[in-house]
């Protein structure tokens, strides 16, 4: 078990080190999401009440679109020189590859969402009136909810010719419950959450994470041996 934990840490560290050494990747994701936030803000006009209502949803739409690019890149570094097969033969436990990459993908999305949040607050004039810790919980568990199935599906599509098209087609329907929970919960926290509904949405998000992080660990090895 400790060997597997060491491998998970090594995979996550390696992926994050690659992100750190190639900052153009994460900045590309950030500016892509920022452009989306800007377009939505301009498209809805200057109505503050509408902007408040859509702030949470726009943030998660930006993170969702950034996630497909981020997940695609996280496996392209493994397939460029067939490092993925090298990991399998080294041997690295497939569950360690999955959890290491899912942790790294979660952290990348958390960084993107964290960088977007103050800009979204400024552009949408929508300050966080509720508990900031719950808001941070939505950022963390929402990012994890995209990364867990995303890491599995990114592996499935990594050798397909149109991987960057196929990944969102497979991933988006699956993460709808997580996106609904994250968007609704984030918006509630930003509006002050007078009826204390946000913790229920957060609980739904945590349940989604528990299911998909468990399933991903179970299925990843089988998918890896077959790709």
């Amino acid at each position: 078990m400790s060997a597997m934990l060491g491998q998970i840490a090594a995979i996550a560290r390696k992926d994050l080190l690659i992100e750190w050494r190639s900052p153009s990747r994460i900045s590309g994701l950030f500016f892509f999401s920022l452009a989306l936030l800007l377009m939505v803000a301009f498209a809805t006009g200057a109505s503050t009440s509408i902007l408040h209502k859509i702030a949470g949803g726009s943030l998660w739409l930006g993170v969702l679109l950034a996630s497909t690019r981020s997940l695609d890149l996280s496996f392209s570094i493994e397939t460029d020189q067939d490092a993925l097969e090298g990991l399998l033969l080294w041997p690295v436990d497939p569950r360690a590859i999955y959890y290491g990459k899912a942790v790294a993908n979660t952290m990348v999305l958390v960084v993107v969402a964290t960088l977007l949040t103050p800009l979204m607050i400024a552009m949408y004039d929508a300050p966080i009136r509720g508990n900031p810790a719950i808001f941070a919980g939505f950022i963390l568990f929402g990012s994890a909810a995209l990364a867990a199935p995303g890491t599995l599906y990114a592996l499935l599509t990594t050798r397909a010719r149109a991987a960057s098209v196929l990944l969102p087609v497979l991933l988006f329907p699956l993460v709808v419950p997580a996106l609904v929970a994250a968007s609704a919960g984030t918006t509630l926290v930003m509006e002050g959450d007078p009826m204390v509904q946000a913790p229920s949405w957060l609980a739904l998000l945590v349940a989604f994470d528990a299911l998909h992080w468990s399933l991903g660990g179970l299925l990843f090895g089988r998918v890896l041996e077959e790709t």
Partner: protein
Amino acid sequence: MAEGLVIDDLARRFGGRWAVARVSLTVPRGTVMMLTGANGSGKTTLLRCLATALRPHHGRALFDGQDLWQRRASMRPRIAFLSHQLRLYDDLSARDNLGVWADLGGLRPDISALLTQVGLETHRPDPVRTFSAGMRRRLSLARMLLRQPDLVLMDEPFSAFDPPGQQLIRDVVRQAKQRGATVVITTHVPEIAQAVCDTRVHLDAGQIA
């Protein structure tokens, strides 16, 4: 229990074409076998079956009496495969690349000494994307040297190497042999490899010629 590598009636197909067709041979411990053959003769496929990267569709390969595919989880740490695919991370430095693979294997090697051994001591902090083809091959070789495997598989190890690099490969093969490892080398240039090889097998259309 037989020591070394025993390939027993092994075959592997891609679609309807048999890339390796019922090959049987034995390579004892401490022996270096050279595998030659034209492009498409099945050398790499055979090596990938031995490395457990591919499942044989017929027959089996044993190492020290253990079925390589059936026991792949326990056999993989004993196998080193120097592949055409270099399996390096271009955005990381030479030192970071070796560090990643060492961490994944729970190993604590002297990475600086390894980089010196393969002639990359002055390129430790450089990103691999700035490396030439030969330097990449050297780094891939250094990764193989992180472990002291019992079964060493080298696919065209002399390609992209300058003469000192070719000598480095021969030295690595000699050291593996002295340790008692079994070594299989595929090559198109037997005259470069023959100084370190004990036996030679020629493949033609997936079969031993």
